[in-house]
């Protein structure tokens, strides 16, 4: 996660003098970000594979402490990271959004897309790689404890990571993109709202499985609320249309300036 946040903020963020530098995506940083996320979550998944069926079977056994240690690290690091990112984005916000050069704004849209790419990459890990590991886990090890190895990864690592990257996308747009400075893009709010909207269902799910539904049929009403996370991402289409519209306008201006100045 630290790789993500440190690098997201510097992606083409320099406030350059108009036309003095070629606008463009820094693919080295962009790909490093995605690779960093893939490495972190793949390592977590490998750890799950190695330890879930050996020291992860019962929360009440002493050897389960391996998982609780990981859990404690996550619940300290991730909220701290979340607060740090929000503070950094706010402290470095654009103070004069009506006077941002097109080159700078275009660079910020590249960074905004990078934030969204990180958010959506984590959706794959949450939705399939870790989410369905949970489904498989419950079919070979009966659900009988408050904490399970798959939940440590799914609910306490990936869901906070989704909130960090989704919330970070939103704050980044609000604090740096002129069009977002004084208003809220509805599709963006819906698209990044999914992880927060499923929180009530996380509670219902744990409560329900404890008191009235011991089985783990996955397509069951107690799980339907989770679908909001995926369905909310339908609204990403509206965000894409907004980005394409605005970037088209900016590209026309920037390319005309760069051609004139021979950059």
């Amino acid at each position: 996660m630290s790789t993500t946040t440190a690098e997201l903020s510097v992606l083409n963020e320099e406030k350059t003098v108009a036309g003095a530098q070629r606008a463009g995506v820094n693919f080295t940083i962009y790909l490093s970000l995605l690779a960093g996320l893939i490495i972190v979550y793949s390592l977590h998944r490998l750890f799950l594979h190695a330890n879930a069926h050996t020291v992860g079977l019962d929360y009440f056994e002493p050897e389960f402490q391996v998982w609780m240690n990981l859990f404690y690290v996550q619940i300290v690091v991730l909220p701290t990271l979340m607060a740090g990112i929000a503070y950094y984005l706010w402290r470095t916000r654009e103070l004069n959004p009506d006077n941002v050069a097109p080159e700078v704004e275009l660079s910020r849209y590249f960074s905004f897309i990078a934030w969204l790419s990180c958010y959506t990459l984590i959706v794959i890990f949450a939705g399939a790689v870790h989410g369905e590991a949970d489904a498989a886990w419950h079919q070979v090890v009966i659900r009988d404890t408050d904490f399970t190895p798959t939940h440590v990864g799914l609910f306490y690592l990936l869901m906070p990571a989704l909130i960090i990257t989704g919330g970070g996308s939103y704050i980044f747009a609000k604090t740096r993109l002129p069009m977002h400075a004084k208003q809220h893009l509805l599709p963006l709010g819906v698209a990044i709202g999914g992880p927060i909207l499923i929180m009530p269902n996380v509670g219902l799910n744990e409560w329900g499985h404890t008191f009235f539904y011991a089985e783990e049929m996955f397509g069951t009403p107690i799980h339907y609320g989770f679908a909001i996370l995926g369905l909310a991402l339908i609204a990403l289409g509206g965000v894409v249309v907004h980005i394409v519209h605005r970037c088209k306008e900016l590209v026309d201006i920037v390319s005309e300036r760069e051609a004139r100045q021979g950059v």
Partner: protein
Amino acid sequence: MADDQSAIAKRLETQIDIILITAIVFAIAGATAFVMAVTMGDWEYWVDWKDRRFWPLVPIGMLMVIPAALSSTFWVKFRLPFAFTAIVLCYSAVRWLSTYLNFHIFGGFPISFVWPSVYIPMAILVDCSLLITRSVFLTGLTGAFLWGALIYPANWPMLAAFHEPINYNGEMLTAADLLGYEYIRTSLPEYIRVVERSILRTFGDAVTPLTAVFAGFLCTVVFYLSWIIGAIVNDHRRWLKKV
């Protein structure tokens, strides 16, 4: 200078395309897999859940939602008639990745017990309907109907062997049922397996065609509703002054 400007604009637009398409691919693959898992996952996960009454109806109806909603954006805003194929392709790739990593390697189930369904042929049909008719209404009537109706024949080459009847200790069951009994799922006991629930279980007769026709109608309705929801939610001109 005009040539220079055009070259610069093309370079920038290509870069935007690359990173934007990456984000879109991640989103549609992850979101579709997650929605399917928590709404109709078991019909996708297990071969003994792939029956003739619910599997050809529930998953195919649910899988219609995200492609149809995003088709409204792909088609209306960009005139791109391939949302269904793109989304189903991404979904299938992620499903296979998850099936192999989670159910086969991690859970220890054989691939023949947990293989994902095939949806790509129907997705191509819906996109082709949109491309040929250029009409949302006609695509709903034809493509969406075929999307629901053809899941059984599209998967039949893989599924046929598992629906063979078996005499097991004097009881008649399918090969898929037997696999389900042999590979015990501790949290998924037989009494909550939602398959073939009806007044008569039979190996013949009109169960599958009836389900296929109903699935077609259901998918047509889901297509129209999802399209409308997608068009409303994805309006990029919707800004709020206050939240």
